């Protein structure tokens, strides 16, 4: 069953390719965009790629574990963004910018 799904039909290869491309895009946004909000968005994109993967496999195996995990990921990502935005707002108040090039207090 497995090999057929992945190799022959039902868009298996396509879905996984999309997942990997989305994940890589998220990682690249994180690594190459030099503002904190963009980096946070890159992380979100990575998590959403994972959600897509989980949903695909959840349908493939006809069980709900993957869907439950992806719901949990939404919740945790929201918590992370809440803490992240709070810290970014505080940084913005102090320095007047959210570009990473301003945060060089620590080096080495």
């Amino acid at each position: 069953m497995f090999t057929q799904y992945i190799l022959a039909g039902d868009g298996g290869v396509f879905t996984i390719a999309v997942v990997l491309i989305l994940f890589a895009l998220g990682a690249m946004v994180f690594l190459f965009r030099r503002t904190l909000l963009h980096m946070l968005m890159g992380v979100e994109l990575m998590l959403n790629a994972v959600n897509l993967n989980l949903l695909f496999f959840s349908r493939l195996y006809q069980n709900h574990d993957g869907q439950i995990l992806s719901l949990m990921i939404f919740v945790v990502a929201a918590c992370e963004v809440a803490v992240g935005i709070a810290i970014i707002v505080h940084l913005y108040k102090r320095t007047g910018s959210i570009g990473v090039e301003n945060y060089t207090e620590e080096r080495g």
Partner: protein
Amino acid sequence: MSELFFDPAFLLGELGLAALIVVLTLADAFRKPLYQLFNGTTQLSELEYRNRQAGWLTGIGFVIVAALFIYTNKLTGGEPAILLHNSLKAGGGLLIGKLVILIAGILTLLLSIRYTSIESIPGIDYYLLLCFSLLGALTLIAAENFIMLFLALEMMSIPIYAMVGLKRYNPRSDESAIKYLLLGGFSSGFLLLGISFLYGATGSLVISDVLTSLSFPTIELATPQALFGALGLIFLFIGLAFKVSLVPFHAWTPDVYEGAATPITAFMSVAVKLSAFAVILKIFAGSTSFGGFDSILVGMLGFFALITVMYGNSVAIVQTNVKRMLAYSSIAHAGYMALAIAPMTHTVDAAKAVLFYGIGYVAMNMLAFGVLIYLTRQNHYCETLDDLKGVARKFPGAAAMMTIAMFSLAGIPPAVGFVGKIQIFMQLINAHMYITAVIALLFSFVALYFYINVLVVMYMKEPDTDKTIESSHQFPVWVAMAASALLIILLGILPTPLLNWSQQWASILF
């Protein structure tokens, strides 16, 4: 091992900690009347008074939780059980792990009571976040299911992101907080991608089911299942390697350790690292062999662990800030712990060596950071080597404590660090990885230099005259330091009980 849906008798400790969180929240809500009610005679400022009140409240709570853990063990006869539909394991050797993490929490609390007032950190927020993080760590080491594992890992990490940023008036603090948060999120992305591929390979999210149904045929990665399994394990390892800061995923460690409040640094470096290592042991070094994939894992783990030891120990030499130096030393220690499982022997002994080292590391790192906290005063951060100049003359006790900590970190007998290192190297020698063992040993001699350098500065340099620190009464910090020093020496001379305990904890992972 029995399978139950839900039996509160097994989770009394965790439930107690959750109740403590509610009590602390209520205490915060009623802080004004409580302050007026109890502040009849003291001369303290409101913040300091509230911090002390919150500290003692949390302390009493932690002691009750520890008692509940021991009572749970009595109540259930020490038999392990799996709860909540394959979500959590409880009982058995996990008691040791939970108590160790709770003790790390109690030591952090003792170190924080005065420090929060010095840094004007609001105590209740701080202790609440500490409780949440502890609850996450306690759940993480018991997780039997990837959903629970992910939730517990984030429950442990997210409060720490906030705690790192609590020194709001210090520019380095929020900078390290955002660095930790972003890199933590990045690493959980990798962890989740790994989990999703493991789910894709096996169709289950229960860790034991995933591990037993992963199969790697002799022609590796020939089937999609083997490919997904391999990708899953590698991404999962990357995600966890971020948490324990193995090179090349270590970049956040020195910055975050330097910018965070010192007690939080101590907590991060022991509790987070130990529980993340418990997860690595369960997945990678547990009883299930990965067949043909094992040889790839041996190469990967061995390489990462060895460059971690080399990098951590060599970069620590040039540091002038003691907190940064300890951060690089903690990177190196993570490398030693990873070396013990690098042969992928899947034996209890390897897991035992890692857990023994981790438990010993709790005591030594708490002591080293405890001395820095003891020497911190209002408007005087004791962080650089210059700040430590000639401290031995004025504070002989603190200098003696630092000596014990540094000897143990360097692995000099009779401290517990020495026994831990022997355990690690025995694993390598048993697996005939002689070259790795020799390189790791050479770099632990390199490490002697920067550990001893701290002592040289403390005992032999003249103190700067403009930087005199007045002595002050710090009972809780002394209790924490004395307890850790006692543990280091006692467990170094008589390691048998700790070896038995780590054996019990390791056997529950199998």
